[in-house]
């Protein structure tokens, strides 16, 4: 009996009929009746994408220099993240995975919070409500259920101007929790947008290893609409997400958006993609760079000129420099901090351990042979 072979075929690019695209790789605008882009700040989108890409490259450099323990690059996914995040209203809540640096940026989170996490100073500690951006979730798929519960809370609050968006990858679609989130969101008609960045890889595994149907089709079997958008087209990601969020706020329930994009970098800085992908494939995708097409559009349409592009580039370098300096200045947490915030209320067992370890450390200092 034929067992499907994983093969090693190159992913060829195709804007298949079902893929929503509003800006071609060449920077040509395409109109779509259902998804107007009225009021879209395309210059702002360009700027955000350039800045997050620069933050990303700086972080990679910092990791190479041993200043970060790890970094998960968003290279190639700037449009999917900036486009979708810019569609959020200030009150909407976002539940990211661990690669949504572009979403974090658009929500107003200081990128230093992300560097703290990848440096090993924190586990990614910020107040989710401050920027309506939840903590990064490393365990694949878990956050989709948190987002569903949060959306159920919005319903119970009777709020009609809030929705939730949760981000996850193509690989995550195989995880049971994500399907459970689909079922729950469907049953409770939760105001929730499932935003799946199909970047063609789960580390080394291609999407064909997760399912033989296009991801966006998964939704219909759970009773809600799914659509595929050109994930390298910031306008399409913006318009389609905005549309889905409005529907969610209007009580129409969940939507699944598959942003068809490509992970141009390694899975993380510890990964070696040369083991599982062809250079030619990467080259092919470079021609659909999410930033280049916007730059081409802005230039051709005259909405921006050289000066603007230069200014954004300078701004990016300056941001990167500041970020690097701040990163290097990050203090390590004091040893005893590891006992903090485990519980809200006191735990005698923990306090005993803390006291014991504090005394132990003090012993070294007395003997002068500090650790």
């Amino acid at each position: 009996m034929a067992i499907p072979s994983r093969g090693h075929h190159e992913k060829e690019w195709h804007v298949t009929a079902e893929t929503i695209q509003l800006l071609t790789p060449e920077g040509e605008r395409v109109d779509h009746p259902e998804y107007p882009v009225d009021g879209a700040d395309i210059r702002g989108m360009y700027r955000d994408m350039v800045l997050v890409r620069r933050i990303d490259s700086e972080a990679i450099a910092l990791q190479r220099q041993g200043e970060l323990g790890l970094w998960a690059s968003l290279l190639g996914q700037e449009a999917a993240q900036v486009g979708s995040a810019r569609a959020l209203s200030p009150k909407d809540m976002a539940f990211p995975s661990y690669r949504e640096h572009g979403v974090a940026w658009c929500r107003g989170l200081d990128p230093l919070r992300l560097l703290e996490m990848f440096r090993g100073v924190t586990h990614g500690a910020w107040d989710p409500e401050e920027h309506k951006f939840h903590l990064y979730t490393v365990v694949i798929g878990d956050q989709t259920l948190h987002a569903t519960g949060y959306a159920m809370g919005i319903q119970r609050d009777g709020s009609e101007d809030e929705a939730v968006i949760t981000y996850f990858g193509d690989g995550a679609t195989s995880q049971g929790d994500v399907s459970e989130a689909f079922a729950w969101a469907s049953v409770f008609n939760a105001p929730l947008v499932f935003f799946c960045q199909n970047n063609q890889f789960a580390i080394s595994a291609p999407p064909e290893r997760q399912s033989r149907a296009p991801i966006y089709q998964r939704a219909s079997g759970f009773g809600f609409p799914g659509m595929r958008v050109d994930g390298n087209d910031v306008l399409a990601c913006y318009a389609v997400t905005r549309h889905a969020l409005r529907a969610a706020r209007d009580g129409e329930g969940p939507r699944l958006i598959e942003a068809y994009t490509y992970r141009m970098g390694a899975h993380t800085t510890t990964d070696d993609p040369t083991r599982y992908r062809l250079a030619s494939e990467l080259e092919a995708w470079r021609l659909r760079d999410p930033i280049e097409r916007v730059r081409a559009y802005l230039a051709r349409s005259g909405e921006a000129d050289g000066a603007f592009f230069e200014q954004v580039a300078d701004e990016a370098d300056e941001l990167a420099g500041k970020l690097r300096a701040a990163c290097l200045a990050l203090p390590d947490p004091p040893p005893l901090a590891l006992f903090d915030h485990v519980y809200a209320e006191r735990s005698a067992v923990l306090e005993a351990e803390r006291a014991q370890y504090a005394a132990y450390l003090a012993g070294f200092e007395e003997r002068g042979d500090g650790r």
Partner: protein
Amino acid sequence: MTRITLSRALNEGLRRALEADEKVMIMGEDVGRLGGVFRVTDGLQKDFGEHRVVDTPLAESGIVGTAIGLALRGYRPVCEIQFDGFVYPATDQIVSQLAKMRSRSRGQVALPVVIRIPFGGGIGAVEHHSESPEVFFAHTAGLRVVACADPADAFAMIQLAIAAEDPVIFFEPKRRYWDKAEVDMAAPLSDALALDKARVVQPGADVTLLSYGPLVRTCLEAALAAREDGRSVEVIDLRSLSPLDMETIIASVTRTGRCVVAHEAPVYAGLGGEIAARVTERCFYQLEAPVLRVGGFAVPYPPARTEDHYLPDLDRILDAVDQTFTY
């Protein structure tokens, strides 16, 4: 004072919590119209509505995962896991998310979620309905793990658990659901013994008998029987399994010099080992005998017709008590 079952006491405690705070929610499989398979949530959906008492889809990871999301939104979900053996699909959400979120966020996020789990055997059930998984959660930092043993305490403990800012894994002694006792439902919660304290339920002088949940009653019966042999057994209901109330335990063992721990969970790598190790560390010179453990064997929970041999009973507990006098 009203004489009610443990199941009813929990039901009344949940009702009080739902009345006291509109953010309190109950969610789980069949908790609504059916009132739960043990009727612990009986009538609550009728009185508080289906959006506060939620019949969920059939998925434990989903129950806990969405409860976390609701807590992030400011709600205080009380999840019911229908039976002990069905908590395992939720392990990831409990261990990697519920337990860790607070420290991950450096205290900026609180998850006041309660997970109710009917646990233990003795009801002649089919497989997976008689497990005692408490040590999984006791070993997991960030969770509070408690077990109630009688109606009055159950009534107070469930309310304290819901009021706590920390996630609480709340174990209910399934086979004691129908035990009746006097409960003072008018008593203010502020008078209740704190959630993290153990309770001496039978003072004694010769040996300390530690237990929790379903075996507390068995231990009290054992203490009664022991008295006939002229032995004074002090019985302590641990109540809190994480953290353990070592002060109460040590105070007792320091007096008695002997200690036996009893639980239904397998002895091997169970909570009894932790207690024995701590007691021995603190009472090394006071102990007349090693801390002995009585518990389930290192086997999967057996079919109902042999469960009486698996479960620690009065005889096995007394046998261990006797052994501590042979050293």
